[in-house]
């Protein structure tokens, strides 16, 4: 694991440009590249939880009474809370069932682990003051007060919490004073500058209108099982607009983003039509997914059905959980992936331009995901070859599923799909290292370079279990890691679009908060570069409209790009 900024030797990996040129390349060379690429043997994720010092264990308070709220697990966040250049890990925990007499909140407290930079982590929860004891579900991160320190928003059943980062290693709970208290059952959340005023707003999805009083048990083939979302009404989402003075106003009704009928579990703030303003995508469980297109006048219009991202190719709503937005096919347009319930394939919506999408899940090789109940996900370049690969965390909600469905199990294998370019995604789970082999009830997943070695590692939050920290040990290509610092735009750079050109390679990325399933990934933008040693051109288009263009940026390092000023630092 070389230190950040130290150039890495590029591995013998094909770049996207190379692939395009294979037909004219020397026969021997082509054969070599084909073997390397098709085998997929060099994707390697190692399970390092035990040696990391992370002793977190998720608890969901299950008592056998089969409370619906126990099924959805919790998320996690990767972010640098102390600005030391190393990603820290925040785990959301659920705990004992809210409303139960004698509830021990401390048993289910959230935990923050500080990255020591040597492969180990230290629990700093108490010192940081972020050990929320509510029945937590989701998390997102963003510098809402533009002070240069990332803040945390936590969702959950019964309450939410906003932790303001003081910059001295501790946080203040400012939920009430900031006006972002969300009651009932909030799940996914994301920061984004939805009104383009230079500060971060907050969108919070709610799931179902479930309460302990309405608890009931369902039956499948004579077995008692958890009731699903179809048994309960959906609940309204919440949009908070940042006033810029440390407080937020609830603009849900005015902006027309109530999500009344939706049962939201995944949230992305994204620019789906590249019109320069931020839109909102909500992955819903059993109801049509929602895409709120920003109309630029403070209101949004729901267009998921219109643009083709509301459900499967037959227009059926799916049991959607996780979501990400990335360019899987290298056409310069960001595509959507949405993870779904068992017997509903995970959906890839290819961006066809003009704001429209097409369900190409089968075409790209994801049609076989039917046995899995899928949650956290991301397009990320696992081997730095310039193509976005795909990770999906899996795990059923019914602990006794195997008793009545011989095709499924409660604990399931997470899956890694290698992007082979024109041939689509290939499931390489079996050969991708010991980190991918355990069967767990996966839920949230966050992605980021924990060890600053230039590749993307993964943290998975498992329901009622210890998490998985998966170190990426793939011998991959070159990379560039870009830390964004906004000036006119929000300080986190959330919403910035990056375009990189290296030889024939073209990569487009967006910096965003939240995403996956109730989780938050590294805000630094990771770009895989294949064999390239230099980025010929790098362009950052900030939410403010300012564009920073850079030339001939050396690969294999972290750079800090400051809005309006270009590269201002390299290394941690």
């Amino acid at each position, binding site marked *: 694991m070389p230190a950040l900024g130290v150039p890495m030797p590029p591995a013998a990996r094909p770049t996207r440009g190379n692939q395009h040129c294979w037909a004219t390349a020397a026969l021997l060379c082509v054969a070599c590249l084909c073997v390397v690429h098709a085998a997929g043997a060099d994707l390697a994720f190692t399970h390092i939880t035990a040696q990391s010092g992370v002793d977190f264990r998720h608890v969901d308070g299950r008592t056998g009474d089969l409370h619906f709220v126990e099924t959805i697990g919790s998320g996690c966040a990767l972010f640098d809370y102390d600005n030391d250049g190393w990603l820290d890990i925040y785990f959301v925990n659920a705990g004992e069932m809210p409303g139960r007499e004698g509830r021990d909140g401390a048993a289910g407290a959230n935990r923050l682990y500080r990255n020591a930079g040597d492969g180990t982590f230290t629990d700093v929860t108490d010192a940081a003051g972020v050990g929320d004891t509510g029945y937590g579900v989701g998390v997102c991160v963003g510098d809402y007060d533009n002070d240069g320190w990332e803040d945390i928003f936590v969702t959950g059943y019964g309450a939410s919490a906003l932790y303001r980062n003081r910059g001295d290693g501790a946080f203040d709970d400012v939920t009430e004073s900031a006006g972002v208290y969300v009651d009932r059952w909030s799940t996914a959340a994301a920061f984004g500058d939805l009104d383009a005023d230079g500060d971060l707003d907050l969108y919070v999805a709610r799931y179902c209108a479930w309460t302990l009083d309405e608890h009931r048990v369902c039956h499948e083939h004579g077995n008692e099982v958890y009731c699903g979302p179809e048994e309960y009404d959906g609940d309204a989402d919440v949009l908070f607009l940042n006033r810029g003075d440390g407080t937020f106003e609830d603009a849900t009704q005015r902006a027309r983003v109530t999500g009344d009928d939706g049962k939201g579990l995944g949230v992305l703030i994204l620019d789906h039509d590249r019109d320069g303003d931020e839109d909102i995508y909500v992955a819903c469980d059993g109801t049509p997914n929602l895409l709120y297109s920003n109309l630029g006048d403070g209101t949004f219009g729901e267009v998921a059905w219109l643009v083709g991202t509301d459900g499967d*190719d037959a227009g059926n709503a799916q049991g959607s959980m996780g979501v990400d937005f990335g360019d899987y096919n290298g056409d310069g347009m960001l595509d959507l992936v949405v993870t779904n319930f068992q017997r509903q394939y995970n959906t890839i919506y290819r961006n066809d331009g003009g704001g429209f999408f097409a369900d190409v899940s089968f075409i790209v090789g*994801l049609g076989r995901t039917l046995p899995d109940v899928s949650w956290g996900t991301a397009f990320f370049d696992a081997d730095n070859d310039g193509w976005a690969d795909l990770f999906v965390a899996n795990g059923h909600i019914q602990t006794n599923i195997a008793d009545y469905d011989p095709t499924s199990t409660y604990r399931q294998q997470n899956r890694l799909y290698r992007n082979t370019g024109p041939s689509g995604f290939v499931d390489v789970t079996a050969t991708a290292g010991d980190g991918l082999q355990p069967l767990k009830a996966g839920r949230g997943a966050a992605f980021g370079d924990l060890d600053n070695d230039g590749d993307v590692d993964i943290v998975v939050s498992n329901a009622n279990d210890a998490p998985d920290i998966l170190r990426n040990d793939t011998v991959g290509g070159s990379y560039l890691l870009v830390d964004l610092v906004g000036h006119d735009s929000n300080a986190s750079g959330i919403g910035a679009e990056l375009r990189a050109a290296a030889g024939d390679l073209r990569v487009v990325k967006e910096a965003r908060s939240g995403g996956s399933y109730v989780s938050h990934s590294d805000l630094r933008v990771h770009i895989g570069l294949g064999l390239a040693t230099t980025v010929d051109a790098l362009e950052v288009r900030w939410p403010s409209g300012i564009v920073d263009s850079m030339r001939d940026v050396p690969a294999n390092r972290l750079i800090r790009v400051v809005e309006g000023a270009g590269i201002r630092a390299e290394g941690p």
Partner: protein
Amino acid sequence: MHALAAAPMKISTRATPVAFLLLCLMAVRVGAQGPATDALADGWRALQAGQLLNARQSFMRAVAASPEEARAHEGLARVAERDGDAAEAIGHYETALVHAPDTARLHVAVGILLSDAREHGRAVEHLRRAADLDAENAATWRAYAQALWRIEWYPRAAAAYERAIALEPAEVWAHIGLGDTHLRAGRLDDAVAAYDRALERDAGAYAAHCGRGAALSKRGEFDDALTSLRQAVTLRDDYGPAYYEMGVALQHQKNYEDAIRAFGRATQLNGWDAPSVMNIARCYARLGKRGLARKAHEHAAKLQEAQSDLATATAYIGRYPTEPDGYVGLGAVYARMGQRAEAIAAYEQALERKPRDVAAHVGLGDLYLNAGMIAEAADIHRVLVTLRPGDIETRAMFGMLLRELGEDEESHAVLAEAHGIVSARATQSGGANDWNLFAYVLYAQGDYAAAETAMQAAIRLNPIEPSYAGRLSQIRAALAASR
């Protein structure tokens, strides 16, 4: 692949009823002796002749004479099945199985009915047992495979189809079923291979062409997919699933106009085809025709809701076959979708189970009213008045229907009685709804001026009730017309 999901194969045990009945007759001759024998033989003969009432009576005689005679219960099940009462048939089959638990054909028959009723778990259990008992029967394995397919246990369904194919390689539907199974599981190459094997045996197997086209489309091979799909509709012009798949392929090719035509043809052939309507909406959206897109989307959403309600009602019937509620739900869905005959049949099934069921009467009454079937509606309301004597609206409607039928004297009496009840309520309690109902009765009696006064009283008491203003307008229009 929604459309293929509707009917991936045919089950051959149903395809040979005559042969089956002959077998049963022979079984009677060589089987039970005594008082039940003649009744059994009579029953099977009557069933073969389509004389269902006679058959039922004969089998009931046989049961009375020999309650443990499985074939008598089976006969009753066959009668109920022919009569369209699957729930009753399931009950008789299960009784027959109590007395003859190792009879494979009984397990197959009840398994198929349970699968149709979406009681998948029980269906699979029966069919698995049938396959154990009759392991060399390809038809049994196909029935088992289809039940597994319906419960979406695809690896097991594929294995069962493969077993059926091993026993009877020439049976085309088994290959098609296997192809459909692989297709649903995302095993596209295996699906294409299975369809190809079906086509090797029967080049005219339109469903195999359709499935092949669907699989190729999912692989992104749209031109080849369209070739297969066009072949399917050449062989069978009214095969809706092929048009749906053509629409999907054309849509991927960004040929939205032709895709709309293909989806449109699919909806002509199946008015419940929500996926086609949803994709028509998407095509219009791509063409920039947002108004048409919105309209199609709203229609598709209604279809989806109706299908969901239909599935719920069917599942309820499967679970509680002797209760009327599932059939009432079924009737309501059919009525909403304008399928009057099916709705009436469903409500009648409910009334067979509970002759004085209020909801079934209300549904049937509304159905007849909306269809302008005044006499039938009046008959239903006559019963409803006895079931809900305090319901003023029912009495007023009954009075109006009688007047329409020229039964003025009875109409007058019914309305006068309603008037007496509701006027007392209105003047005693003074509630807005009582005045509203009073206005309704007065309107039915043709006393529009008094109806106007009563309606105004209702509005004074509850000014925010949105329906009252419309009713007042209706009364005033009638008043103006009468002057």
